């Protein structure tokens, strides 16, 4: 049962005739994927489909024979004599029917399994690939667009696999079988039918092309109307405050009118196509009857593969076949659009699959460590509370370096887009336990620096070292495990409060999670929730206040207990009183760790060991709060409110 109907999007490629372009490569790849997922089931389902539909085309042979027998015996009226002959024809027909029914049951049941299995595997593959994509991908693609791969595009693929491909196979098989039978009986009559079908295809091609054009136009006005609706619904309060109801309604009416007009055209085309094709079929049927009748009476020779002479039983069978033939050709042409749409969806899915995954050449890993009294570090099987970098060298030796949280950026340059440098000559030395703050306007490059430390992006020039090891050598997942992250935009997951805290350390006990919540100052409000730690969060924790969500995010980082923390504008968009509570949690969290803080409010960074003032990707001032105030530079101006931090 289709939900999202396939649709033309504004960027659907069109060929010269106004139809979306057909891509053979995409068909091949889709079929290849299904085969890869189900190497036995898929061919089996295809064979069963072909078999069951081919069988459904055969009865006309038996009808023809039965009618011939009737013709012979009608005058004598001797039913008992005719009965034996007729039953002899019908018996194999029944056998065929039973076989076909078995095949249909198997085919439909298996194809339900196949379709859903394929979709699930495809979704999972898509999702797995997506998890491995670099942050850059998510920063440069709209989330709505990424989502539509999972909703619209996979829906069109579902349509393709569950309906279009079987329909094409079915109709194709019937057309082929019927065509062979027709050739068997009579070549001239077959020729007539072919001519009629050609006329039919021509009309449907013309109409179909026109309809595609209108569907594209419709899709464009749908997009325009939806965009307007979205904006107006979101801004409805402003509309009210400005008494703007009448004028926004008028704007909407114009868009609505246009949408209606384009939708009407597109649907009118699509709606008339059916009756036209069907009635061309009807006319063809009559023509075959009349011309065939004339042909029969004329006594002209009937060239046929079988060499049979033309008689009434053949003509009757032919008439039935005409219906079958045109009906199925019609089915085939109708599938063309669906297949093309499916292919467009498939191509978009493949685009996401083909994105370059995040490269990771790191080989230094994070292991549990035992530290002997003399300071030597060795690897341990169990959790010791100490960690070390396990560093294999080219000569086969292994060294262990204790995880301490010493982060250094040396002469770092970076640009998101080649040629537009965002960071230049960045030098930062953070010793274990130090608090380093970044201050500057939006776009000055504060967040970018933290993006480089955890390798969301890779630097262009210079070096970043973690405990003396070049971060490029460290396995990314281990590097990130050693860096805690609290972002301005808190993202919580559907699940309980406890689940959300445990996200920081999957094997944390309930006790550890509670302890982390206490440290962050979140325990207080959590225990006051109706179900405490078992309270379900949904929609990014929409049942919590902004401040409470932020406290949970801090608890989540705390339970991971990393030696280095990155706090990116973690307390903005919170009122000053709530901020004070969160600040206490953060202060606790920061104790004994290397911390990078990005803050909007200078009050949160004043006690940092060093404050870096960034401007256009350069560090223009650095030092302690007192030092910078004395210098009376940019920091001083920010502090006194002469500059705007936006």
């Amino acid at each position, binding site marked *: 049962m289709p939900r999202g109907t396939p649709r033309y999007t504004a960027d659907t490629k069109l060929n010269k005739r106004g139809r979306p372009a057909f891509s053979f490569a995409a068909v091949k790849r889709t079929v290849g994927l299904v085969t890869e997922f189900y190497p036995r089931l898929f061919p089996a389902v295809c064979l069963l489909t072909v078999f069951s539909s081919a069988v459904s085309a055969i009865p006309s042979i038996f009808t023809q024979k*039965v009618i011939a027998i*009737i013709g012979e015996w009608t*005058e*004598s*009226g001797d039913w008992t004599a005719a009965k034996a002959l007729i039953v002899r024809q*019908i018996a194999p*027909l*029944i056998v065929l029917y039973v076989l076909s*029914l078995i095949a*249909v049951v198997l085919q*439909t049941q298996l194809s339900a*399994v196949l379709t859903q*299995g394929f*979709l*699930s595997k495809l979704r999972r593959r898509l*999702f797995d690939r997506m*998890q491995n994509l670099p942050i850059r991908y998510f920063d440069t693609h709209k989330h709505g667009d990424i*989502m539509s791969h999972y909703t619209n595009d996979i829906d069109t693929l579902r349509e393709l696999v569950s309906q279009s491909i079987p329909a094409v196979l079915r109709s194709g098989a019937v057309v082929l079988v019927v065509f062979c039978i027709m050739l068997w009986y009579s070549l001239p009559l077959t020729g007539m039918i072919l001519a009629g079908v050609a006329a039919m295809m021509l009309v449907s091609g013309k109409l179909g092309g026109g309809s595609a054009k209108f569907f594209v136009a419709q899709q464009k006005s749908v997009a325009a*109307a*939806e965009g307007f609706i979205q*904006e107006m*619904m979101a801004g409805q*309060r402003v509309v009210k*405050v400005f008494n*703007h109801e*009448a004028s*926004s*309604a008028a704007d909407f009416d114009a868009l*609505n009118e246009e949408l*209606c007009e384009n939708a009407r055209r597109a649907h*009118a085309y699509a*709606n*008339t196509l059916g*009756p036209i094709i069907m*009635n061309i079929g*009807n006319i063809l049927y*009559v*023509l075959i009857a*009349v011309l*065939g*009748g*004339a042909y*029969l*009476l004329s006594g002209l020779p009937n060239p046929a593969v079988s060499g049979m002479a033309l008689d009434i039983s053949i003509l*009757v069978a032919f008439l039935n076949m005409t219906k079958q033939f045109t009906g199925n050709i019609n089915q085939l042409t109708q599938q063309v659009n669906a297949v093309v749409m499916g292919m467009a969806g498939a191509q978009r899915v493949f685009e996401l699959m083909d994105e370059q995954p995040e490269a990771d050449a790191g080989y230094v890993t994070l292991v549990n460590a035992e530290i002997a009294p003399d300071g030597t570090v060795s690897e341990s099987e169990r959790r010791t509370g100490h960690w070390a970098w396990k560093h294999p060298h080219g000569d086969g030796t292994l060294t262990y370096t204790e995880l301490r949280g010493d982060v250094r950026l040396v002469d770092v340059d970076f640009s998101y887009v080649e040629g537009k440098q965002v960071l230049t000559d960045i030098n930062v030395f953070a010793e274990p336990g130090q608090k380093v703050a970044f201050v500057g306007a939006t776009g000055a490059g504060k967040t970018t620096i933290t993006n480089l430390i*955890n390798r969301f992006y890779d630097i262009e020039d210079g070096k970043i070292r973690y405990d003396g090891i070049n971060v490029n050598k460290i396995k990314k*997942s281990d590097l990130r495990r050693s860096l805690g992250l609290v*972002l301005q935009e808190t*993202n919580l*997951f*559907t699940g309980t409060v406890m689940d959300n805290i445990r*996200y920081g350390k999957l094997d944390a006990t309930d006790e550890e999670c509670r302890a982390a919540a206490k440290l962050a100052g979140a325990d207080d409000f959590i225990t006051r929730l109706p179900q405490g730690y078992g309270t379900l969060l949904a929609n*990014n924790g929409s049942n919590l206040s902004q401040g409470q969500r932020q406290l949970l995010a801090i608890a989540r980082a705390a339970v991971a207990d990393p030696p280095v923390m990155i706090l990116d504008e973690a307390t903005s968009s919170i009122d000053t009183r709530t901020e004070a509570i969160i600040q206490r949690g953060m202060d606790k969290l920061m104790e004994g760790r290397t911390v990078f803080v990005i803050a909007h409010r200078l*009050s949160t960074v004043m006690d940092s060991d060093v404050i870096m003032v960034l401007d256009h990707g350069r560090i223009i001032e650095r030092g302690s709060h007192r030092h910078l105030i004395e210098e009376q530079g940019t920091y001083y*101006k920010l*502090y006194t*409110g002469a*500059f*705007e931090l*936006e």
Partner: protein
Amino acid sequence: MLKKLGKCVREYKTPALLTLLFIVGEAVIEALIPFTTARLVNEIKAGVDLAEVAHLGVILIGMALVSLACGGLAGFTSARAATGFAKNVRHDVFHKVQEFSFENIDRFSSSSLVTRMTTDINNVQMAFMMLIRIAVRSPLMLIFSVIMAYRMGGTLATSFAVIIPVLAFGLFLVGKKAMPAFRAVFRKYDRLNESIEENVRAMRVVKGFAREEYEKAKFARASDDIRDDFTRAERIVALNMPLMQLCIYGNMVFVLLFGSRLVISSQGRLLEVGQISAMITYGMQILISLMMLSMIYVMLTMSAESGKRIAEVLEEVPALREPDGSAVTEVKDGSIDFSDVRFKYSAKSERYALDDIDLHISSGMTVGILGGTGVGKSTLVQLIPRLYDATEGTVRVGGVDVRDYDLKALRDAVAMVLQKNELFSGTIAENLRWGDPNATDEALAEACRLAQADEFIRSFPHGYDTRIEQGGTNVSGGQKQRLCIARALLKKPKILILDDSTSAVDTRTDALIRQGLRDYIPETTKLIIAQRVASVEDADLILVMDGGRIVGAGTHAELMASSAIYRETYEQQTKSKAKGGEE
């Protein structure tokens, strides 16, 4: 629901009725075609008269042409009726939302309104089209085909007496079993998509905690779970096809076997060969009609939920009633009075969002309102332009109860800059003219100078013609706030309310804006909600709010002496001296 939606057909009743007419015509002819074809086949069989064959052929082609005309016209009229109906529904919903008060908007979220206006209306449009095309055609075809089959085949048609109930019952059973299964799985499917969205949005967290593998495993579980449910539901529906084939095959065998017996034993008097193939055709038509009917049944019940959601919006009663008859159309001055006002957002909520509010503000005063989040500051000011109505007590503007004003007149006199600012796609000038559609360029520039926005607007390459992207994403937060203030100033209001509207503006600019307001529009009453004491320090009156009540009122000096909360906030903010660049 049907009544509400039915009203939206309006001017498209004619094409809808025409569609029905054409469809009836098409169905009648389609039922006659096999009948005439049977006669044609019999003529050929008899092989007597080619003229007669040609005559019947012409009749048949004529019928096909009429059927084509009917079908084609029905295609056009139904498209017209259905898209027109959808247009009217969209129109009604949109205009209804324009009548909504804030209270109504709160009840529906904006994203749910968008879904209702897009996906749901689409579903209803498709359902409407199905209804006028196929829902009439299928039963008609069914009835005509049965009648014709009886007329032609006589006793042979008794097979339908068995097949139709069997198939109908079978299809009904399948539909009944499958539908709840599908509904359940669609809900799960929506949740799966939500979890993908969650993952995409939280990608920095996922990667930051190196949780890619964990997320993959979580997704695999959810996806496989849905696969199992979906497969179960689809396997039920997959029974339709074999069931249908069983009936077709059964009918074929029956007709061939008993038809031939009838033909032969009556020596062609009771039944002729032509009728046999016609019976097969009618059999097909009957079964296909049944199949269509069951499909429509499923589709209609599915779109009924969309219809319900749309009807909810249409049936919503706007929470604000305009005064009947003699509404006051002029606001005399900018004085504001609250007498014994209490307010709660919904009748069900236990706690009052505002309680015990008694307040007089004279025209031209500057009033600062201070307090933590959720203490009722925004709620208080929203009662002034009657965005909500007070639950108890009265709010007066210019000495007149706000409920006695013509709503448009009241809101024209009270300009409000909301906490959640929205700019719309269009140029800066277009956005500003929301305040006054007839404002001259000079007036725009003047308002912008007051709001300290003129300078940065002129620094843009296209100045006042710079386009604002949807959601106003191409201007910074502080710039957006200043544009919104300018937009409100253009209304030349008697009362100006700034609800935390300068939070992203630096203190110096903030002070300049306040200075400008004081100097250039002294007669306008100004209400300023702020987080920073500095933003309200020099106001004529400062209100300190807590828990929905005004807990302190007076000038800065008075409050420093009398209000503990005020003093505490002031000291906290000045001690940390975080004056600069707050968010």
